[in-house]
C-alpha cells in the first residue's frame, strides 16, 4: 500500500508538470492511474488461510513488537538499549518461534494513548505492553487479546508520612495522578464515585510524567496497576517514602494483543505464550529442554518437538516451541529474572501455576 501511494504521488506531480508544459503525454498518465486503481484493489485483502503477517515478518527478518516506554519488570530498556521484562519475553518468544532467533525483535516504545492505533494501523504486529483485556477493547476496535501473561489489579500509592494506610481514609478534594487512555482512568472514577468522594484527576500521557507529578506533590495519590506501582516506586527519588495501599479495586488481566483478521498469526502469538507457561508446568526449562526430548512423558515430548506435528498448524517447523524454551525460558524463569529478582514483586501471588495455588492455567498444547 505504502509503495503504491508513493508511486501515485510522484506520478501525480509529474502528471501536473506534463499537463502544464504540453498535453502530449496525457494518454500515459491516464494509463498509469488506471493501473494504480487496479493495484489499489488488489492490496487490501488480508485474513486468508495463510498468515500474511507471518509472511511479512519473515520477509522483514524481525518481529515488530509494541512495548511500554519503560516499566521495570515488564518492558524496560537498559542504558545500552537492551529490552528486558516479561512483556518483552513474549515478543522474544514469538521471534524465536517464527524466525528462529529470540533477538530478532524490533521494539516500538508506545504510550498508552498510541498503542492501539499503532497495532491497528500495522506499525506493529504484536502489542505486548501491560495492556488490560476488556470486552470493549477485544470486541469493538479491531483487536484480539490472545491470553494473559500477568494477573494484576489496580491499587493506590501514597506518601508514607501522609498517615494513610487504607483507601477508606481518602477524603474529598484529594487529587489523583493517572495515565491517559488506561482502564485505570475509568476504574478510578467507579471507585471514588462508589465512595462518594469528589476528587481531582490529573491526566498525563507518559508514565514518567505521572510519576514526576506525584513525586513533586502535585497529586496526593498515584494510581495504576499494582505491579506498575511496585515497578515505578523503584524509579522514585526516595522509594521508601511511599507505600502501596493494600486494597485492590479492579481486575487487570494483562496480556499480548494482535490485530483482528489474521487468525493464524493470532494463534502463533497465543501459543508462544502458552508454551512458556506449559513448559513451567512440566518442569521444562532453558537448561534441560534438549535432554527432555528423551522424556517418557508424551506431553513433554510434544512440547520440545520430539513428537507430533504441532508447528505445521501455524506454518512453522516442529522445533518452534523448543526454541522458545531454550532461548527465552519458561514463564517461571521469565518471572524470576524480570520481576522477582529485581525486587519488584518477589511473591508471585495469583501469577503462580494453578498446580501451586495460583490461577495460571493454559489449555494443553496437543
Amino acid at each position, binding site marked *: 500500500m505504502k509503495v503504491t501511494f508513493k508511486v501515485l504521488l510522484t506520478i501525480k506531480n509529474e502528471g501536473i508538470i506534463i499537463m502544464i508544459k504540453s498535453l502530449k503525454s496525457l494518454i500515459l498518465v491516464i494509463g498509469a492511474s488506471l493501473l494504480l486503481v487496479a493495484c*489499489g484493489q488488489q492490496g*487490501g485483502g488480508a485474513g486468508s488461510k495463510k498468515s500474511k503477517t507471518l509472511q511479512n515478518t519473515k520477509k522483514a527478518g524481525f518481529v515488530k513488537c509494541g512495548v511500554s516506554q519503560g516499566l521495570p519488570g515488564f518492558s524496560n530498556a537498559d542504558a545500552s538499549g537492551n529490552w528486558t521484562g516479561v512483556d518483552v519475553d513474549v515478543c522474544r518468544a514469538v521471534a524465536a518461534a517464527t524466525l528462529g532467533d529470540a533477538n530478532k525483535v524490533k521494539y516500538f516504545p508506545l504510550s498508552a494513548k498510541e498503542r492501539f492505533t499503532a497495532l491497528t494501523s500495522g506499525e506493529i504486529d504484536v502489542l505486548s505492553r501491560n495492556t488490560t483485556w476488556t470486552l470493549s477493547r477485544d470486541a469493538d476496535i479491531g*483487536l484480539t487479546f490472545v491470553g494473559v501473561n500477568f494477573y494484576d489489579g489496580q491499587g493506590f500509592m501514597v506518601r508514607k508520612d501522609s498517615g494513610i494506610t487504607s483507601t477508606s481514609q481518602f477524603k474529598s478534594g484529594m487529587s489523583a495522578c493517572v495515565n*491517559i487512555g488506561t482502564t485505570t482512568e475509568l476504574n478510578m*472514577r467507579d471507585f471514588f464515585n462508589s465512595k462518594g468522594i469528589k476528587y481531582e484527576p490529573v491526566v498525563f500521557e507518559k508514565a514518567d510524567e505521572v510519576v514526576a507529578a506525584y513525586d513533586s506533590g502535585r497529586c496526593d495519590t498515584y494510581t495504576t496497576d499494582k505491579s506498575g506501582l511496585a515497578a515505578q516506586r523503584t524509579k522514585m527519588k526516595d522509594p521508601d517514602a511511599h507505600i502501596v495501599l493494600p486494597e485492590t479495586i479492579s481486575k487487570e488481566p494483562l496480556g499480548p494483543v494482535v490485530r483482528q483478521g489474521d487468525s493464524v498469526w493470532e494463534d502463533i502469538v497465543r501459543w508462544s505464550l502458552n508454551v512458556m507457561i506449559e513448559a513451567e508446568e512440566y518442569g521444562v526449562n532453558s537448561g534441560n529442554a534438549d535432554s527432555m526430548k528423551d522424556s517418557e512423558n508424551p506431553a513433554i515430548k510434544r512440547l520440545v518437538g520430539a513428537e507430533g506435528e504441532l508447528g505445521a498448524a501455524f506454518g512453522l517447523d516442529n522445533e518452534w516451541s523448543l526454541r522458545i524454551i531454550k532461548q527465552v525460558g519458561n514463564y517461571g524463569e521469565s518471572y524470576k529474572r524480570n520481576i522477582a529478582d529485581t525486587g519488584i514483586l518477589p511473591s508471585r501471588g495469583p501469577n503462580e501455576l494453578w498446580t501451586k495455588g495460583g490461577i495460571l492455567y493454559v489449555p494443553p498444547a496437543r
Partner: protein
Amino acid sequence: MKIKNLASGIGDFLDDRPRLKRYLPQALTLFFIVFVLGYFTFNAQVNMGNRGIVFGFGFLQQEASFDIQFSLIDYDGSYSYGRAYLVGLLNTILVSVVGIFFATILGVIIGISRLSPNYLISKFAEIYVEIFRNIPLLLQIFFWYFAALRALPLPKEAINFFDISYLTVKGWFIPKFIWTNFSFLLSSILLAIVGIFLTYNYAKRKQEATGQRIPAFFISLGLLIALPFLGVFLGNVGLSFEYPTLIQQTTTIYNFKGGVGIIPELIALALALSLYTATFIAECVRAGIMGVGKGQKEAAASIGLTPGQTLRLVVMPQALRIIIPPTTNQYLNLTKNSSLAAAIAYPDLVLVFAGTAMMQTGRAIEIVSITMLTYLTLSILISMFMNWYNKKIAIKEK
C-alpha cells in the same frame, strides 16, 4: 518513436480544438483530487473492514465514564462522550481567550515600548521579543509547568497573599465572588454601556454638524460610575467573598477548600501562550506604527492636534489597518497552539477528546476528524470576525 508520433498527433488534435485544450487540464486536476480522496477512503474502508471496525458516530451518545479535572459546565463521568467533547472544546476556548487577551495587551505595550525614545525601555522590549520569540513554544510550556510551577510549595506552606489568595503546587486559590441581586448591577452596567454609545454618536454628529465639541469622555466616565452605583444602591446588591481555607485531611495532606482554584496546568499554558504570542503581536504593532508616514504626524501637528489626538485620530486608525491582518494570524496560531496542552495535562479538546475519549472508544478516524473540523471551524470563526473588523476600519472611499 511510435509514442512520440502518437503524442504529437494528440497535440495537433488538441491545437485544433482550443476549448477542449483549455478545460482538459482542469478536468484532469479535478479527476486526480477526486481519485486521491477516493483512494484514501477506499483504503480505509477495506482495512477497517478487515479488522472488524465499524465506522459511526453513535458513540457520542454513550456514557463517557471518565472524569475530567476541570470543567466550565456540569460534567462527570455519567455524561456522554458528546458532553465530554463540549467540556474539552470550552476549555480550549477558555485558554485561547485568556491567552489572546493577555497576549494583545502585552503585545501592544511591548510593541510601543520598542519605539520608545528611552533607550532602556526600547532595549528591554527588544530583548524580551528576541528571547521569547526564539525559544520553541513547547519548551516554554514545559519550563513554566515543570520548572516554575512545580517548584511552588505544598498547600501547607502556600505562598500567602493577604490571607485571601494562595499559590501552591496544586494551583492558585482565589476568593469566590458571591453576589446577591446581581441582575440589577448587570442591567445598570449594560445601561451605562448603551448610554456611552449614544453619547459618542451624538457628540460625533453634533461636531460634524456644528463643529461644537462635547466632552464625551467625561460624560461617559460619569455614566459608567453613576449608573452602576445607582443600581447597587437601589437594587440592594450585595457582594460577599468565599475565601479558600486550608483544611488538614491526613497527617501531612492539606488541601484548600472553598474559593476558586485555578489549576497550574491552565496557568502554565496561558502564561506560555501569551508570553510567546505577545512577541509576534509586538512586532505587528511596531510595523504598523512605523508604517504610517512621518508626514502624517507632521501634518496633524501643523493643524494644531495635540500629540494624544495625533496618535488617536491620525496614526492609530492608519496603523490598525497594517496591524490587523498579521495579528489575526497570531490569534489563529495561539488558538491552534493551545492544543499543546496535552503535553501538560490541561484538559483541552485534544487531551480529553482526541486523548481519553479516543482511547476508550477506539474510534480514531471519527474522533480525529471531528477534532480537526473543530479547530478548522474555530480558526475560520476567528478570521471571519477579524476580517469583519478589518473591513470596518478600512479606508472608506467617499
